[in-house]
């Protein structure tokens, strides 16, 4: 009886383990290479310097087209910037506020509590300025794509000339990792496109890694706290489980 029940458990467990896999595997069959990031694994944390450089890449390159409407400048404090630095960054942008006492909207310089400035007022304007393609919001992009950060990094570094025999549609660019390989966004990163304050050479790969780290942080700012708490919770539960098992053994000792 024990044997058969255990067997049933094993079958059930095994099937449960593989069951969710197909839900994620479905779709495009382009293999995304696994990239090592500072935030991989249970004890991984965001490389702050890299994420700060990544913000610079976003600010100077991506933000021309891509919004990050869920983030505020104050969030940058979590990347290790000081209050003054955040205030200075926010002040570089003008935001529309109002209405004032005369009922007029007015412009003022940004404050840390303001959301990241959006390059376009709405989706239609964004499409109109980009040949009909919509530059997606990047706030949660690593959560919103199969492959997450690996995919973003692969996409940013995956531009190449179309292979022989592939006809590109007008205005499209060839990317190894984009589903269908034809992407409206031109290769966004070029060597030395930004100048890092800390002297890190701005290669395409470096910039892609930095901006991916920044985007991963933006999508899951709670990640470090979550994992740290998780380790403690699991440890606690393991001890509690041992105790509960001991109690159970003791209670049942007189039955058999």
């Amino acid at each position, binding site marked *: *009886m*024990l*044997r*058969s*029940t255990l067997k*049933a458990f094993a*079958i*059930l467990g095994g*099937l*449960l383990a*593989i*069951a*969710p896999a*197909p*839900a*994620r*595997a*479905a*779709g*495009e069959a382009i293999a995304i290479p696994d990239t090592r990031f500072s935030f991989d694994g*249970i004890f991984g944390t965001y490389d702050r310097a890299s994420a700060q450089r990544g913000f610079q890449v976003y600010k100077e390159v991506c933000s021309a087209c891509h919004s990050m*409407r*869920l983030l505020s400048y104050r*969030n940058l404090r979590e990347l290790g910037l000081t209050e003054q630095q955040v205030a200075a960054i926010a002040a570089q942008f003008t935001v529309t506020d109002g209405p004032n006492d005369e009922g007029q909207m007015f412009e003022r310089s940004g404050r840390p509590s303001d959301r990241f400035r959006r390059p376009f007022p709405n989706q239609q304007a964004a499409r109109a300025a980009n040949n009909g393609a919509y530059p*997606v*919001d990047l*706030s*949660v992009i690593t*959560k*919103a*794509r*199969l492959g*997450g950060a690996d995919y973003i990094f692969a996409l940013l570094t995956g531009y190449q000339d179309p292979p022989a025999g592939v006809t590109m549609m007008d205005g499209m660019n060839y990317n190894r990792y984009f*589903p269908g390989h034809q992407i409206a966004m031109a290769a966004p990163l070029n060597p030395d496109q930004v100048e890092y304050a800390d002297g890190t050479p701005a290669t395409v790969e470096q910039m892609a890694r930095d901006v991916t780290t920044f985007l991963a942080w933006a*999508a899951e*700012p*709670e990640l470090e706290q*979550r*994992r740290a*708490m*998780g*380790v403690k*919770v*699991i440890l606690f*539960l*393991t001890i*509690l*489980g041992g105790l*509960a*098992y001991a*109690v*159970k053994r003791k*209670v*049942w000792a007189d*039955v*058999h």
Partner: protein
Amino acid sequence: MAIGLHNSDFKNPVVRWIDQRMPIFTMMQKEYGTFPTPRNFNYFWNFGALAMVNLMIMIATGIFLAMHYTPHTAYAFDSVERIMRDVNFGWLIRYVHMNGASMFFIVVFIHIWRGMYYGSYKAPRELLWMLGVVIFLLMMATAFMGYVLPWGQMSFWGATVITNLFSAFPVVGDWIVALLWGGFSVDNPTLNRFFSLHYLMPFVIVGVVFLHVVALHITGSNNPLGVEPKGPQDTLPFHPYYTAKDSFGLVIYFIVFASLVFFVPNMLGHPDNYIPADPLVTPAHIVPEWYFLPFYAILRAVPDKLGGVLLMFGSIAVLFVLPWLDSSPVRSMRFRPIARISFLLWTVCFFVLMYCGAMPAEEPYVTVSRIATAYYFAYFLVILPLLGRLERPLPLPESIARAVLGGGPLPAGAAAKPMEKA
């Protein structure tokens, strides 16, 4: 003893005072303290209590999420992300709620599977079983509507596809769909009513769970042997034996739950639901949440719209009549060699359907889905009714105590030491 007061056995004066006027302590003592419970439960019998805990977790986290959520198409997505970013521990509460739904289905699937394997649905527990199926249906409806609330792409298109199922019904179909939508498509009125119902239904579930437990405590629990307890030697008081065992199981369940929440919170979800809903763009590949996949595969296995919908609903509805389809007097599959293999094969089919449901609607998945669907129904409608007549069950043990404690010749299958030693 004043007239009209309940005769309470409790010593503590406060407890006694309350108990005399409203004997909830006596009731708790009877139903969860001394309640005679078969002594041979294995760990499959933990899952009812786990489901109860899971329901409480869902309600608690849900109430706190509702304090921050905005049920409006323009704000729903952002308000959920605000919970994740700005609300203190909002990410924790939301991930617990989100993964709690998956945990709930894992627990309930195992709970149902246990009922099917050990014949818990058979007389006199038919009503207990049917109430369970009602809970399962309510859970599915609640889960579906909850999944719509974040208003991501999968929320929107899942809602569109599932509500459109009802349009398959002749005459009243379109009327029902309009009733669900409150408009001409899935839109703000739909989101609002789904939020309202999503908040309501868990409390309906609590009510049905109460009935489920009431029915359980009339018939008493089934057990792995499927042999009714014949006397005190066959049972143990629920407390401390099964409270201790359930507590241990509960901690194991929490460990699995915590692993999901803290380390892979989005593993069971779909990335597309982090893209805000866009009524103009359908995702390349729509899949429901994993726990709906088997039923989704049954839907897609049928080339006819109405037929698919009916078969999908039928796959659950057939559970209602299961107690009458299975005509064998023997409950536990331990003593039904052929039925046991048939049922394990049914279990495999369930997972095959789950797999096919996640795959695109193309070959070979369509054919595989059809075969698995055919077996899914054949098991209930053909195999079980026939086996009741044709199968020769193994000899049953005389009593639980005899099977558990040994002594005298026992049937081979029941002779092994019970699970409790593990």
